[in-house]
């Protein structure tokens, strides 16, 4: 682990040294505008990427999700339940105040008690007690051994304890979200300072001259322009309005490859695209007979039916024809190379005859009707994937309707749109990127029994539940030994997906960025688009 850490740091330092000597501005066209500049308002990819350039974290991920120290110089467990972090000295916030252990404690307090946000960082702050030893030494204590401490700390950003806001004093420490959005409180320790945010148009960042830390500062001024429409983003790059774009549409990759003025960079992401199936309700609202009439049994509760559905899906065809080759068929939660994977689990082979046999064994040989729900503006080609699955299941004897909707409507309905805040749909298309860079994050959120009080199964929209899986995840989270923890996570995956088919993995996303010639972007597995990963090519 330690060697990896050093390597990651070395890589970052080397990129820093090869940066340009001259003043330089850069404009980046991004698909998704963040929902806030408040570091704790919304645990969302676009937010974490954008705000992480202005605010530092104790430790952070490099582009391959290897951990390196950012505001912490070193860290180690000093006993079973305590981690010690040595903080970097001489670091300043953008408003000139000094960075100390107090700021970390303050930040955790605001993140932990945050109210009114879209989603919370509490899953990462929960159960951790912070204690200041001196200005630059911090102890973090947990009740049980907690090996994932550094991974958790890559999520929580650190703000200044001296920040002043205009909100009510008893809400979020008196600092309102809008104080971050207009720059009143937007002072971090990151390599870039916040300049302005024109909603719906752009965010402008500027190099912080007093920066101390490992991140490179290749640019003096960085402008992020929000260009939501796919062809418009490509057109902006070709016209020279922007120097780089993210989320290059798969349909344009071939054309851009042939263009000598454009350079592409591509990388597998930590995001798996998969299907949830309702395993809780006896009468599931979108499971019908073949003619579309309600039925009083829910076939999705039978693991054989779930397996059969998985076998009816032609993953290579989706990758080739829908994703235009830019994706990897998936059989588990993370692509090869990540920590805690099952060594044996492969994507289910396309086998309609075998699937029909399984269905007949389960007593559903005559088939039934389904509706697949999915977003149409969240993942690469999401609506088209849903439609392709609709085609494949219909052709295999499960007539499937396809309903897609914008993400801001979709996610709240998929998670809590039904009666009593239950998931509204029966069969949904979603994606999950592992925020911790290993398998416990998706296992905990997607396959552990849904229990908000324990922070388990938070996004388990199919309500898969197996005590064996729960206990393996629980053991893994408290196992310090890396090899043993990896084996436990692999076993949990083998049972939850291999045996139970709790979810149906489809493919791992591959992300593509395009820059004008002369620039180089290191593709990030966490899908973030940041200024410090963009450097002039030699």
């Amino acid at each position, binding site marked *: 682990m330690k060697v990896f850490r050093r390597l990651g740091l070395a890589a970052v330092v080397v990129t820093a040294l090869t940066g340009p000597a001259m003043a330089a501005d850069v404009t980046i066209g991004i698909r998704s505008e963040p929902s806030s500049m408040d570091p704790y308002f919304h645990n969302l990819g676009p937010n974490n990427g954008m705000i992480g350039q202005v605010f530092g974290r104790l430790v952070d991920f490099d582009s391959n999700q290897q951990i390196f120290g950012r505001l912490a110089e070193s860290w180690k467990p000093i006993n079973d339940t305590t981690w010690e972090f040595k903080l970097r000295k001489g670091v300043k916030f953008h408003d000139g105040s000094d960075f100390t252990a107090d700021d970390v404690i303050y930040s955790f307090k605001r993140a932990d008690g945050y109210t009114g946000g879209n989603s919370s960082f509490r899953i990462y702050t929960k159960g951790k007690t912070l204690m200041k030893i001196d200005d630059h030494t911090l102890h973090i204590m947990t009740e049980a051994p907690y090996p994932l401490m550094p991974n958790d700390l890559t999520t929580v950003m650190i703000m200044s304890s001296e920040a002043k806001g205009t909100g009510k004093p008893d809400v979020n420490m008196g600092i309102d979200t809008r104080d971050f959005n207009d720059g009143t409180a937007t002072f971090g320790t990151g390599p870039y300072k916040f300049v302005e945010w024109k909603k719906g148009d752009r965010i402008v960042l500027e190099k912080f001259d007093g920066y101390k830390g490992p991140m490179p500062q290749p640019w003096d001024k960085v402008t992020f322009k929000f260009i939501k429409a796919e*062809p418009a983003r490509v057109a902006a790059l070709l016209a020279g309005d922007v120097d780089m774009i993210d989320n290059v549409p798969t349909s344009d990759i071939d054309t851009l490859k042939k263009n000598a003025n454009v350079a592409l960079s591509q990388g597998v992401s930590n995001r798996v695209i998969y299907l949830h199936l309702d395993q809780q309700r006896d009468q599931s609202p*979108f499971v019908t007979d073949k003619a579309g009439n309600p039925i009083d049994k829910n076939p999705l509760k039978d693991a054989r039916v779930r397996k059969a559905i998985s076998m009816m899906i032609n993953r290579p065809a989706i990758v080739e024809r829908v994703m235009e080759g830019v994706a990897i068929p998936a059989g588990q939660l993370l692509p090869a190379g990540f920590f805690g994977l099952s060594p044996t689990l492969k994507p289910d082979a396309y086998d309609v005859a075998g699937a029909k046999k399984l269905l007949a064994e389960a007593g559903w040989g005559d088939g039934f009707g389904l509706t697949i729900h999915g977003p149409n503006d969240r993942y690469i080609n999401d609506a088209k994937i*849903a439609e392709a699955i609709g085609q494949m299941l219909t052709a295999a004897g499960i007539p499937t*309707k396809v309903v897609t909707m914008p993400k801001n409507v979709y996610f709240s309905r998929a998670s809590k749109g039904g009666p009593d805040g239950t998931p509204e749909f029966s069969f949904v298309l979603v994606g999950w990127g592992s925020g911790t860079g290993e398998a416990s994050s998706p296992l905990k959120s997607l396959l552990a029994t849904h229990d908000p009080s324990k922070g388990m199964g938070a996004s388990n929209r199919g309500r898969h539940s197996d005590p064996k899986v729960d206990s393996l995840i629980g053991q893994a989270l408290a196992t310090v030994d890396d090899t043993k923890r990896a084996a436990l996570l692999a076993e949990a995956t083998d049972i939850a997906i291999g045996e139970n088919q709790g979810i149906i993995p489809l493919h791992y996303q591959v992300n593509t960025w395009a820059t004008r010639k002369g620039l180089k972007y290191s593709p990030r597995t966490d899908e973030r688009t940041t200024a410090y990963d963009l450097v002039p090519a030699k």
Partner: protein
Amino acid sequence: MTALNEEQSSLAVSTGVGVETPFKRFLSDYKESSVAVLGAIGVGVVMFIALFGPWLAPTDPYDLAQVSVLDSRLTPGETMMSGATAWLGTDGAGRDMLSAMIYGMRISLGVGIGSGIIALMFGCSIGLIAAYCGGRVDTLIMRVVDIQLSFPAILVALILLAVWKVKPNDPGYYAIFKIIVALVVVQWAYYARTIRGSALVERRKEYVEAASSLALSDQRVLFRHLLPNCLAPIIVVGAIQTAHAISLEATLSFLGLGLPQTEPSLGKLIANGFEYVMSGKYWISVFPGIALLFMIMSINLVGDRLRDVLNPRLQK
């Protein structure tokens, strides 16, 4: 005005050949513009395609079992897995563009005419009542019309469709029904205002007074005497509004509201193709675009000519 019309018609009868019914006179007036005749032929073609679509289309693009993603993005003229030729290419989901456009035109025209007829009936009844009753009823109805017309049509339709959720196990036609209702809501006020204007003029004429003095029921006076004499402007507004409804439906579909993903109308087809615009796969958006343009232009040409022919002030 009536006097003038009578004079004209008597003139026509005295100089015309044979017996000239009003319909024949209308036809000969209409035929004076060759562009309008082309428009009428266009409308005929569109109607034919819409009525006989399922027999004309090579495949059923809405049957998921017949569509395969393996056929996606074929260029015009390529052969699909089923052996059929995709004359206009296929879209990103593997639908034959020609079939998808034929089915899309069915939906567009059905939605346009369906919503037009309902809005016409509803709007005309309300407008006639306003004109006939006058006074407070008139003021009240016309203020509602004013408020309705002050909102942009697309906004009202968007809000309606966003608020009105599809419930579990709703039948397939429910989505179309929703769109038609949304379009009726944004259109009825045009009809109400138009018919009220002409009804106010007609109402003061002697024949209405005569009918009333015969103690005929209000209903009979309204619908048997007043309405037929107000029809000319309504026919014109109807044609223009149908074209408007079709383009509104296309806009809503383009924005992703309305019909299901697997049953694209023309607007949805164009939206799907929009994603491929930069990659040179022109056929996915261009062909449905041309079809939509052709439909709307044909209807508008007919509507324009109808306005000229039916407007007494423009008659030579």
